[in-house]
């Protein structure tokens, strides 16, 4: 099993087999999080460029920690300090970064599709760390890994996503991953955040329903992903905190409507007392901190797969042979 490209721009185009491969390859890195000495030398001498054109704390730290635990160095570009403020174009910025010869680019951008655009112009692997309202592939993978660890499977689960789904790239990555394993989705939130077109985003084989009463949405749920009420991606007037709490907050009482062993996810950072009560956030069904730990394992796997095995020379005699992977130059760059 090898991946078709070294970029990871979205989960939507990946097959169930490729997604399972990524989850399985994260397992050895989960073990390393439990070691007293967590640092490997696997990517020693390699450099990972982290270009976050949109503010991020946890995802950036998670990727930086993943790179460092693999022995790689990082170059950091942050929105506030970047020359974008001085009017440089996105392409000029990333080409400048690329001229410093990193081995991989991890990028976040407020515009959907920006990492795709950049990947077409660079010959190094590009990993999407969240683009606009499109996808957040590493989050989708770490959510699936966390669910798989707790429930033993990601097949045919009832997944309820609560909150601002319209603006959520996390919800889209969840749907594109878990949908390929037969999960059924219930999307619930204020009507303006759960538009009808969301029912169609994953093709005819994925069952997605919209529900506007939280009690109905939680009934029989195996997985509940509570999204953060985000202000930075809302362009229209939103709902008041009081109304949101009344209508959609995940409380212990409401959680009892879900399946007794349902797990509660939250991509963070949490607004305690708004979308989730502290009791639920800290309760036994919450996997929020496991998500954070797994995030490093998933990102270590992604960096390892993107950067390792770059040379095209013959396999080591002791290594098992694997079919050569398609290089980007032969598949999509010419497209």
């Amino acid at each position, binding site marked *: 099993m090898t991946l078709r490209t070294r970029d990871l721009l979205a989960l939507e185009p990946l097959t169930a087999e490729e997604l399972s491969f990524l989850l399985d390859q994260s397992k050895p890195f989960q073990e390393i999080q439990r*070691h007293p000495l967590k640092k490997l030398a696997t990517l020693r001498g390699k450099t990972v460029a982290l270009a976050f054109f949109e503010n991020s704390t946890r995802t950036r730290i998670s990727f930086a920690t993943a790179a460092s635990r693999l022995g790689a160095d990082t170059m950091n570009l942050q929105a506030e300090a970047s020359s974008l403020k001085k009017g440089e174009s996105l392409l000029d910025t990333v080409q400048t970064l690329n001229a410093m010869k990193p081995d991989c680019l991890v990028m976040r951008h407020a515009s959907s599709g920006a990492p795709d655009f950049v990947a077409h112009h660079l010959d190094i692997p590009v990993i999407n760390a969240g683009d606009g309202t499109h996808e957040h592939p590493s989050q989708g993978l770490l959510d699936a890994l966390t669910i798989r660890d707790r429930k033993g499977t990601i097949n045919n689960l009832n997944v309820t996503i609560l909150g601002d789904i319209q603006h959520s790239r996390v919800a889209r990555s969840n749907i594109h991953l878990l949908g390929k394993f037969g999960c059924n989705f219930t999307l619930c939130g204020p009507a303006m955040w759960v538009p009808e077109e969301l029912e169609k985003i994953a093709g005819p084989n994925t069952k997605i329903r919209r529900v506007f009463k939280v009690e109905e949405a939680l009934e029989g749920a195996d997985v509940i992903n509570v999204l953060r009420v985000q202000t930075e991606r809302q362009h229209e007037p939103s709902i008041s905190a009081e109304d949101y709490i009344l209508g959609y907050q995940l409380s212990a009482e409401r959680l009892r409507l879900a399946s007794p062993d349902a797990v509660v996810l939250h991509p963070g950072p949490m607004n305690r007392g708004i979308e989730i009560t502290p009791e639920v956030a800290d309760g036994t069904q919450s996997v929020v901190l496991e998500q954070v730990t797994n995030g490093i394992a998933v990102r270590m796997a992604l960096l390892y797969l993107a950067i*390792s095995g*770059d040379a095209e020379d013959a*396999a080591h005699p002791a*290594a098992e042979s694997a079919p050569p992977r398609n290089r980007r130059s032969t598949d999509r760059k010419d497209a």
Partner: protein
Amino acid sequence: MRVVEKAQLMSASEIDRTLQRVAHEIVERSGGTKHLALIGIVRRGVPLAQRIAQAMRGIDGVDVPVGILDITLYRDDLSKVAPQAVLRSSDIPFGVDNMDLVLIDDVLYTGRTIRAAMNGLFDLGRPKRVSLCVLIDRGHREMPIEAQYIGRTVQTSDTEIIEVRLNEIDKEERVVLVDRVEP
């Protein structure tokens, strides 16, 4: 480049007798099995370690823990191995601090795998002693590494390959010497 089989080095029963013998040697030389544990190196070291542990149970009911170590992440030839070398899980369900560990692998060749395995082990803690047990020692070392328990020593040339085939992985049980020849 073709690969031809030149000779069979060990049959199934010879493999079994050899593992019985090294099991005895390990118990004998360890002077007590209280802190003894076996670490099988992925892939073929794993069934070998399990079989040696089984043989030890038959000696005097000695039950030694067996761990699994995948050394892929510790290789020094990352860019030379096949693209996206597939990772397998390590599983060492015991603390290694102050343990008397025996690394188990099928073939000892350059010594680089063992170098990587020791790096991996020392990330887990500080074992008291680490020794090495291999089914075949074929020479051509590139590292100052030797095995303490050796099933058989075989003189080989650089173009030759030793293939240890085990039922658990290969559905057959023998050790063969193959050679790469120009077509």
